[in-house]
C-alpha cells in the first residue's frame, strides 16, 4: 500500500493513498461535522457541512469528496470554515420544526448537535415553514417530511444497500421532498421495510414507529446480538430500557451486514414481549394445563423420563433439539440424550 503524509490543523498525519480528507481526519480523531456522508454509501458532497480550508485552494472544498494528497495543508476549524458552517446550519434550521422536546430523534440528531455546537439560533433567516402531512401509512416507519434536510442519504441507502430505489427527490426549491417516488406513502410504494433509510437518516424525518415515545437515547442500553430469524446471521443492537427491549437499531460494526437489516430483524423484535409468552411451567391434569412451580415440573419430568428408561430402555426416549436455540444449548441437549438418558435418539427439525 502506498502512503502519503499531510498536515491537518498543524498535525502531521500519514494515511493510505486514496483516502479522502474526511477519512484522514476521522482516522486521526479530528472531528468534522457531516450531514450527507455515510461510510457505507457513495459520496454526494451536497450538504457542505464538512468543508475545510486547504492551502492553495480558493474555495472551501467539502472534505468528503476531496482526495488527500502528499504535502496537503488542511485546516478544519478556522473562523472562515466555522462561519460558513454556521450559515449552512442557520439556513437548515430556518425551516426546520423546533419541536425537539417531543421529537423521537432528540439526543441522537446530527442537526441539533451541530446547531448547538455552532450556536445557531434560527433567528437569522426567518423563513416560511413547511406544513406537510406525516406518513404513518405502515406499521414500521414514520416519515415526517417537515424535518427532512434533503441530505439524500436515505435515497442512496435504498439504492445502494437495498438495491431498490424506492426513494427519490420530488419537486424543487422550497417544495423539494424526499420520499417514495411520486411522493406516494410508503405503504403504496415498492418498499420492503428493511429500514435502511431509517438507519441513515441524520434527523427525525424517518423514525422507527414502534420506538416513538419508548425511550430517549441516553436512557437506552444497547446490546449487540445476533438475529434469530434466518441463517444470514445479521448483528444489531437491542435497545433496552428499564429491562424491556424497546426496539432494534443498526450496529455499523456488524460483521455480516453492517447497518443493513431486513424487516424481520429490524422490526420483528416486539415478539419478545408478546403477551402470549409462557411465563410459568404448566402441567396437564385431566386434560387441562395447571400452573406449576419449577420444582414440581422438573421433578415430574425427571421422574417420568426415569420411569420410561427403567421400563422400556433408554431408546424408548427421543429428544428433539432446536435450530433456533444456541450452540451451547444444542450441545447440552445432545449430551443430555447421549450421556444422561443414554440414547442417540436426538435430532432437530431441520427445514434447511
Amino acid at each position, binding site marked *: 500500500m502506498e502512503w502519503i503524509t499531510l498536515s491537518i490543523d498543524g498535525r502531521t498525519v500519514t494515511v493510505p493513498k486514496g483516502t479522502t480528507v474526511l477519512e484522514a481526519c476521522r482516522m486521526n480523531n479530528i472531528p468534522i461535522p457531516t450531514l450527507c456522508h455515510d461510510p457505507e454509501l457513495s459520496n454526494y458532497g451536497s450538504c457542505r457541512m464538512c468543508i475545510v480550508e486547504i492551502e492553495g485552494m480558493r474555495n472551501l472544498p467539502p472534505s468528503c469528496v476531496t482526495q488527500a494528497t502528499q504535502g496537503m495543508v488542511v485546516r478544519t476549524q478556522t473562523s472562515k470554515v466555522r462561519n460558513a458552517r454556521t450559515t449552512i446550519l442557520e439556513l437548515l434550521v430556518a425551516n426546520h420544526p423546533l419541536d425537539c422536546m417531543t421529537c423521537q430523534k432528540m439526543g441522537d440528531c446530527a442537526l441539533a448537535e451541530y446547531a448547538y455546537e455552532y450556536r445557531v439560533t434560527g433567528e437569522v433567516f426567518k423563513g416560511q415553514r413547511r406544513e406537510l402531512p406525516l406518513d404513518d401509512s405502515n406499521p414500521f416507519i414514520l416519515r415526517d417530511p417537515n424535518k427532512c434536510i434533503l441530505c439524500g442519504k436515505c435515497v442512496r441507502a435504498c439504492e445502494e444497500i437495498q438495491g431498490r430505489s424506492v426513494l427519490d427527490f420530488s419537486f424543487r426549491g422550497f417544495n423539494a421532498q424526499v420520499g417514495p417516488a411520486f411522493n406516494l406513502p410508503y405503504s403504496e410504494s415498492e418498499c420492503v421495510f428493511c429500514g435502511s433509510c431509517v438507519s441513515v437518516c441524520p434527523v427525525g424525518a424517518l423514525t422507527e414507529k414502534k420506538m416513538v415515545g419508548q425511550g430517549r437515547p441516553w436512557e437506552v442500553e444497547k446490546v449487540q446480538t445476533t438475529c434469530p430469524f434466518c441463517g*444470514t446471521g445479521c448483528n444489531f443492537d437491542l435497545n433496552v430500557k428499564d429491562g424491556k427491549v424497546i426496539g432494534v437499531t443498526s450496529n455499523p460494526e456488524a460483521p455480516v451486514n453492517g447497518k443493513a437489516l431486513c424487516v424481520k430483524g429490524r422490526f420483528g423484535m416486539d415478539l419478545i414481549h408478546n403477551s402470549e409468552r409462557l411465563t410459568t411451567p404448566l402441567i396437564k391434569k385431566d386434560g387441562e394445563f395447571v400452573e406449576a412451580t*419449577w420444582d414440581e415440573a422438573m421433578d415430574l419430568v425427571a421422574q*417420568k423420563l426415569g420411569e420410561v428408561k427403567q421400563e422400556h430402555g433408554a431408546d424408548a426416549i427421543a*429428544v428433539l433439539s432446536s435450530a433456533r436455540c*444456541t450452540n451451547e444449548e444444542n450441545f447440552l441437549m445432545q449430551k443430555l440424550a447421549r450421556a444422561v438418558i443414554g440414547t442417540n435418539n436426538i*435430532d432437530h427439525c431441520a427445514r434447511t
Partner: protein
Amino acid sequence: MTFGSGAMTNSINEIPDSKVLLIIGSNPTEAHPIIGTKMKQAVARGAKVVAVDPRRTEMADVADVWLRLRPGTDIALINGIMNIILANGWEDKKFIAERTEGFDQLREQVAKFPPEVVSKITGVPVDQLIEAARIYATAESAQIFYTLGITEHIYGTDNVMILADLSMLTGNVGKVNSGVNPLRGQNNVQGACDMGALPDVLPGYQKVTSPTVRAKFEAAWDVPIKSEPGLMLPDMLEAALSHEVRAMYVMGEDPVLTDADVNHVREALETLDFLVVQNIFLSETAKLADVVLPAGSFAEKDGTFTNTERRVQRVNKAIEPIGHARADWKIICDLATRMGYPFAYASPADVMQEIASLTPQYAGITFERLGRKGLQWPVPDAEHPGTKFLHEGKFARGKGLFMAIEYQVPDEPPDEEYPLLLSTGRRLSHYNISTRYSEALDSYAPEELAELNPEDAERLGIKDGERVKVASRRGALETKIRVTDRVLPGMLWMSFHYKESPANVLTNAASDKVTKTYEYKVCGVKVSKLI
C-alpha cells in the same frame, strides 16, 4: 458429502464481488434478505445471474437467464448443463485431473442427458440451457447458491451432490467467489448440526459408530456412548406410533406446524406416554404436552449461533427472562442434574470451553475471542484467525469425488384427482412461525395468499382474493388466493407460516432416503371453490 463437509464454502461478504451467481431453488431476497441484497449489489456491479426456479422470484427477474424448470426436475437439468459443458470442452481439465476422482462415471452418466431430452423433462428451452452452461462454465469465477427445493441437512443428498459435481467439473470451488453454498434457513441450523443434534454424529460430525470417537467422548463424559445411530425425526414419529418410543422431549420446535403431513405428526405425539415441550410460546406442539417448560427468548440469554457461512457469533443477554421463564441451557442443566448426572456449568462460556475441547472445528473458539465479529470455523487452535472459504488447495476428504446421479421422479406427482402441484416456501416478512408473534410483522402480512396461475384460475373460475378449499390425499384447508404469473400453470405455491392455513396438512411425508428431509416441494393437490 462430495467434498467431505456440508457448510457454505464461501463467505457472505464475497457475494457483492461475484462474477457469476447460479441461484437454484432459492429465493434469497425473501428467505435470506440480506444475502439477497448483496446479490443485487453484485448485479449492480455487473455480475451475471443464472436463476433456476419454477416460480418468478426477484432474482429470476434480474437474471441474465431464468431457467423456469418444472418443479422436481433439478437433477435432469444439472445433468443437462454438464452434458453441454463437456460437449463444448468448457470443463476445467487441470482441476479435474489434479483434484478429483470418479470423472469417468460422471461422464457416462451425463452422456444420457443430451439437451433435447433435458428440455423435454424440464420444460426449459435448449438455447436457455446452453446459455446457462456457457455463463457458468466460462466465467472467471462462479458461485452456486441453493436452499429449499434442493434440500438440506448435512449429508449430500443427490441434489446437493450434483451441484458439487457441476462446481468441480468447472473448477469453481476452493477459491474466492467460487463455491457451492447452501443458504441455511433457520438461524442456527448450522450450529445445531455442528453440535451433534443429529442421531448419528457427535459434535463436529464425529460418527457415533467410530470406536475412537466414542472413546474420546466416553473419557470426557465418563459414561458409555451407544454405538448404534439413533432415530431421525420421521422415524421417531413412526416409533411413537408403534410404541417403541414412549416419551419425547421437544425443545424450541413446533413439528405440529412445520413438519410435513401434520395430522400424522399430531397422531404420533398423542400416542406417547409422556411429552415435554420447552418453548417460549404455547405452540401447537406444546398444546399436546404433559409438561410445558417456559423458555427464555434469545434476548434473555447468552450463547452463540453459527450462521450459514460458518461464522460463530455471540448472542448477548439483554434482559432478564420474562416472568418465571428460564434460559433453555439452564433448564437442560437442571434436568440433567435431577436425573443424576450433574451439569455444573456456570455459564454458556463454560459450555463453549467443553465444546472447543471436543469439537475440532471449534477448538480455537472462546467467547472472548468471538468478541463483536465472531469467527468462521474451522478454527483449529487458539491463534487461528478462522476460515473464509473452504477447500482451498484440498478438499476435506482429500480428492473431490464426482458422483453420477440418476434422475428420479417426485414421490407424488400431480394426477387426475389432484391435478395441481403444490410447492411451499418462505415469505419475506415471516420466519417459520415465530414471527407471527410480532404484532408489527403480522399486521403487515396477516394471512396466507396462495399463488395460482391466471390460466388455472380462469379454468376453475377463481378470482384474485377469493377464499378457496385446497385438498391433498392427507388433508384440506382454506386459504385466500392470489392470481399471479409468478407461478407456472399447473402449480400452487403456499408459505407455511400460518396456523389458520397450515400448508403442512397437505404436504407429503415421503422423505429423502438419506437425510429424511420431507418432500415439501412437490405434492398433488386440488383447489375448489367454497360452497
